């Protein structure tokens, strides 16, 4: 079943169109990962989905209704977004920042109710930030900070999570922790996850569905087996990849690669 439909979307910035006429569906209750080289329009596409950028033509549909016609607060109750370069203002504590995730559920002056506290504390707990709760976000390491932002998106309590490179700034172990957390949220609570990852092997290992993009167009969409092929990686990244099987997930992974010899 489809939860998000991207229908002939063209999107970009003031004088340059980054994504032209892209159509793809995001299945409900699955992990979908977008891969592609730098500047291929992955983040731009996520921004269109998260209504940060307005589509110049086409539309994004959430359960069949055009997203820009829905009340933005209603969308925020169903869809949480972790932007790529989230940057907290100085002096905020972890608890305070995560608590802003409850905004779409609050009215008026924004006092936190019991239910809000439960969501906030749960989000802090599952991201392993309990001991940092009262620390200033500024004083944390890059990896811890990234987890705070993820916690804020979790506190929003939405069925859909959209994350733009959630593993940047994290070391190997923390990258895996975040991805395993997302996997857990997906498997146990059926949350739909859409993310951009640069690590192809992580993408393959944790996704049900992959979307590969280049120059603002969709190259191939499908299961990791379908997308993680030598041929597809060659056309997307212009690399000559040697594939093997992940011993953990049994999905195809890239063992090593070199730049394609042929000049384009």
């Amino acid at each position, binding site marked *: 079943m489809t939860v998000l439909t991207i229908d002939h979307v063209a999107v970009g910035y003031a004088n340059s169109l980054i994504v032209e006429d892209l159509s793809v569906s995001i299945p409900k209750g699955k992990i979908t990962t977008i891969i592609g080289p730098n500047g291929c329009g992955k983040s731009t596409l996520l921004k269109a989905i998260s209504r940060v950028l307005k589509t110049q033509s086409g539309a994004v549909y959430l359960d069949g209704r055009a997203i820009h016609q829905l009340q933005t607060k209603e969308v925020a109750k169903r*869809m949480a977004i972790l932007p790529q370069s*989230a940057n907290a203002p100085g002096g905020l504590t972890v608890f305070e920042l995560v608590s802003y995730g409850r905004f779409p559920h609050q009215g008026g*002056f924004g006092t936190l109710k019991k239910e809000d506290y*439960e*969501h906030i504390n749960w989000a802090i707990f599952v991201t392993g930030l309990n001991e940092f709760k009262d620390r200033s976000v500024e004083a944390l390491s890059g990896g811890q900070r990234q987890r705070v932002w993820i916690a804020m998106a979790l506190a929003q309590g939405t069925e859909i999570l959209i994350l733009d490179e959630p593993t940047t700034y994290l070391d190997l172990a923390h990258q895996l922790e975040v991805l395993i957390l997302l996997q857990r949220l997906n498997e146990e609570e059926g949350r739909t996850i859409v993310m951009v990852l640069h690590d192809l092997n992580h993408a393959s290992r944790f996704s049900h569905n992959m979307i590969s993009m280049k120059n603002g167009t969709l190259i191939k969409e499908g299961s990791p087996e379908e997308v993680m092929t030598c041929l597809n990686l060659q056309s997307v990244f212009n690399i000559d990849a040697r594939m093997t099987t992940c011993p953990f997930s049994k999905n195809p992974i890239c063992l090593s690669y070199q730049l394609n010899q042929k000049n384009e």
Partner: protein
Amino acid sequence: MSTPAEESAEIETLEEIKKHSHPLIAIVILFGGMTALLFAIGLSISLGAADIKLATVWTAVFNFNPEITSHQIIRDIRMPRVLGAAMVGSCFAVAGALMQGMTRNPLADSGLLGLNAGASFMLALCFAFFPGLPYMYLIMFSFLGAGLGVLIVYGVGSLSRGGLTPIRLVLAGAAVSALLGALSEGIALYFQIGQDLAFWYAGGVSGTKWINLQIMAPWIIVAMIGAVILSRSITLLSLGEEVAIGLGQKTKTIKLFGMIIVLVLAGTAVSVVGAVGFVGLIVPHLTRFLIGHDYRWIIPCSIVLGGLLVVLADLAARMINPPYETPIGALIALIGVPFFLYLARKGGKEL
């Protein structure tokens, strides 16, 4: 996975958690600041060319007797002046706080971003072409001028490659302010209205009359209420525009209303005191340092502390070299410039 409720119950009870939100210090600052402000207002009324006892100030306010000269001095000269100072301080401070929150630019201040220069330029034009224009209209031209100033600054700033960084905006602000300042002076010379404009440049509240206060007050009250209503949204915006949109905020609407409030506040303040800078820089940063990042508290505390700062500055302006008055703008710049340098040295890092 257990439900959120079960898991968090294992971690902490609700009562323990509530300790994490502590607006207590903000309340202390708010009420301490108000007390200090009232005291400073009393002190400022009693001190001056004619020395008046604090007790006399009390009776003049609550038991006015028109027969007594000191009561008349208090009523007609000193009270409007000190109330004007307090209002102007609050306006600049809240305008600065709003701008910093909306743009995430720590150097945002109505003086640095050209609003003040724009408003005083417009006032110079009014003096030149519509001499004797009632204050009621002057104040509106002042709003317009503030809007004009900020438009030019943002226009010039966004022409540069790589977009608007805090430092670039301030540079554009400095350049545009210099230009508008020069134009105002040119107008003053050509139309020989230098005398009228002098106190605007120097910045002073000495000429404030009750009638000015009456006209200012409704604008300020409405704008301040608006600022308090917006305050929670401003906090959200200060997390970054994308985050705010993701959380379901109508960022464009909030920014529009925020900007209108800023223009009204800065325009009103300039129409009384002239282009005094740095209040909007010093006060919100100090407040943020004291009470944290929640604009629901920053805005009310800025109202109080901003008023306090300018009342004290005005008092100092009269005390330093009596009977002459030191320009209040110069005094505030004395604290403001080192403070600005300190913030700029931190690289103008985004808030």
